[in-house]
């Protein structure tokens, strides 16, 4: 187990470095930040000076060497736009994103597993049809629809909730609800599919022969066997939340890492992009590690 984690950590570190190298060079191919930072009327000298000041005039390899040197000492550089350490900017935003992702995914996973399982239990029944309809619409509706409509209904017309922002607990309700919908739809479907198979297995018969109630049969006997694809997909959805829920952050004014990343990419604020990718990648690597451990935890047959 420890050995497994250590091996994994080494491999992850290598791929993390690879990722950063890739992003470093690729992102620098996408244009000159000077042109974006300075107004279009800025003179060529000003642009040159900007590049000089931020070391963008040096050959790419020199820049890379310097970056690596700094990173090794824990310095991820300054944000071009914000004139403050890129890592600080990212960590600030990531905290919000992390909370949003964790809360949302917890709710989603719980709800989707229950709904999907029940739907599978009576596949083809009314509940199944209804939940399929809802989940599919949820999975394919543009999220800004829901966001804007939710604001119009709950904030403007009913005045129950604030439109946007981050102050109180109430502020979290709309963003989380909007984020909830799509992963919920997807996971319900995956759970349902996987559970249909599990529920027709022989061991479910055994449980029925033991007189076990439907509840435990679904949620204890079948579910755990059906969980492998489910947690994989939960992981995938969580990863996309960790990478930032751009729409929700934009509309609800949530200062998360998604919008930060887009803005930094569009503005070619490389240091922030790199730091953001580093932080989210770390989170995602860690999550994948947890998922892989969960596989083994869920199914003793795949423990090595």
């Amino acid at each position, binding site marked *: 187990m420890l050995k497994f984690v250590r091996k994994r950590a080494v491999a992850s570190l290598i791929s993390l470095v690879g990722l950063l190298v890739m992003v470093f060079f690729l992102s620098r191919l996408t244009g000159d930040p000077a042109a974006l930072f300075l107004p279009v009327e800025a003179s060529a000298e000003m642009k040159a000076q900007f590049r000089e000041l931020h070391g963008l005039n040096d050959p790419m390899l020199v820049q890379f060497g310097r970056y690596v040197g700094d990173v090794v000492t824990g310095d991820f550089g300054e944000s071009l736009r914000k004139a403050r350490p890129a890592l600080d900017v990212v960590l600030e935003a990531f905290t919000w994103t992390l909370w949003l992702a964790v809360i949302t995914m917890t709710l989603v996973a719980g709800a989707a597993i229950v709904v999907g399982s029940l739907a599978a239990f009576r596949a083809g029944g009314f509940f199944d049809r209804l939940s399929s309809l809802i989940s599919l619409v949820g999975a394919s509706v543009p999220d800004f629809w829901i966001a804007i409509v939710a604001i119009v209904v709950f904030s403007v017309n009913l005045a129950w909730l604030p439109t946007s922002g981050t102050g109180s607990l109430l502020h979290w309700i709309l963003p989380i609800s909007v984020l909830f919908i799509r992963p919920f739809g997807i996971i319900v479907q995956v759970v349902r599919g996987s559970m249909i198979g599990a529920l*027709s*297995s*022989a*061991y479910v*018969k*055994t*449980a*029925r*022969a*033991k*007189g*076990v*109630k*439907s509840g*435990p049969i679904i949620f204890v*006997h079948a579910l*755990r*066997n059906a969980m492998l694809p489910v947690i994989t997909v939960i992981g995938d959805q969580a990863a996309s939340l960790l990478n930032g829920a751009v729409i929700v952050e934009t509309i609800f004014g949530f200062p998360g890492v998604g919008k930060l990343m887009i803005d930094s990419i569009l503005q070619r604020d490389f240091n922030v992009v790199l730091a953001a990718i580093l932080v989210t990648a770390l989170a995602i690597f860690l999550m994948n590690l947890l998922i892989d451990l969960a596989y083994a935890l*869920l*199914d*003793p*047959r795949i423990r090595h």
Partner: protein
Amino acid sequence: MADHLLEVRDLSVEFHTAVGVVKAVRNISYHLDRGETLAILGESGSGKSVSSSAIMNLIDMPPGRISSGEILLDGVDLLPMPAQERRKVNGRRIAMIFQDPLSHLNPVYTVGWQIREALTTHGTDAAKAASEALRLLTRVGIPDPERSLDKYPHEFSGGQRQRVMIAMALALRPDLLIADEPTTALDVTVQAEVLALLEELQRETGMAVLIITHDLGVVAEIADRVVVMEKGVLVEAGTVREVYKNPQHPYTKKLIAAAPGKGEMHVPAARAEPVLSVRDVRKRYGSFEALKGLSFDLMPGETMAVVGESGSGKSTLARILLRLDEPDSGSALWKGRDLFTMSPTELYKLRRDLQMVFQDPTQSLNPRMTVYQLISEAWVIHSDILPKAKWRERVADLLVQVGLGPEHMGRYPHQFSGGQRQRIAIARALALEPQLIICDEAVSALDVSVQAQVIALLDRLRKEMGIAFIFIAHDLPVVRDFADHVMVMQKGNIVELGTVREVFDAPQQDYTRALLAAGLDPDPDVQAAHRAARLQRAS
């Protein structure tokens, strides 16, 4: 007639399939009283499992359908009962031991958990359930029960899993126990213990037992009455003695006549160059040593029977010889070349020559393939064996040889009975025309008439094509009829190795002797005598 514990009246069950309606059970009726043991004998695929599943309400409906009949438990019809109440009956009042323990145990929970669940479901508190589970595992003879509680089903041997099932079924001391082939995977000594356990419980609690088996010895040992089924129909009923001594129906007669263990024992030819030469094979699972250095030789066309305690490493040996598990050390020379060091490409060529029939037929058949696809896959893989045009014909041929029909070709594994699946697995192994077949309890789920037919087939192949067999079995009479050499295993060791005659007539080791002594005789009278003697010895 409300005084019967269980009464099945006019029960019919049918299944819908793509190719039409299968009438699995047709208008059968029988009854069972408290403390009584009723054996259902019958051809494999005759509807034994289905009819007993109907009692437990475990038939998938649809595609199954109970088209007529009623099932009365203490005079109350179980069929129209609402699910809520059924649950109180299942497990507590009626318990079931399934035919196919591997697939019927939940792979992701420890066996301890699964046994405890049977108890807690019906209201036992957790602490009590825990101690009870330990007691039950001990009772069914699982070695190291305390540690075993925390093991998962795949970590057990076939026989051990079956005992776990038994423990689970007995947990709540039900009024009625339905035991579907409860001892197919048990060696005779353990089988005797388990049967004794059933009897003891019967004495203590007045439990009634409905036992489905094809082993006439088991019937003779514990049953009071027998019903015989064939092709979904109940063809004969009566006390054990009546039916054995004076069978009425031709099928019953055939069945009794087919009881193994009466033929000539083989005399193996003089030993020449062995095809397979196994030296000092060892295997451990964690700290547990499953194989402790086995060595033996196998001649071409020879049958090596492997008998021995459940959990002694028989299946492990088979798996290792086929490189499904890697051994820790040792060598196995196949025609002079070491199986254990072969590269995948070399192995591929060899696969053709080495085949296996698995202990657990359900799991070893891909549920998404039809019988035709399952069998013909061999020729897809090794394309030089048979031209495609002939496949259909050959599959039909093989099916008939193992006692199935060509009409089964389009069906899927789940649509067959346990014994039928085993026969499909045998047919599949034969399709490759290998030189060595490892049969892991390959005939244990077959009724004696089919068993005899299959054994005869294997024997013919052995003679005609020089196929060698490693024949893992616990059914001593079958071994006696079929084997050239017998290898007796216990706790990962070979305790005795010799020709059939040597082993059966002059066993050297205590364990072998105990094994032989524990064998059951199909004749109820003989068995009654054995029993009396045994009881006397015990007291």
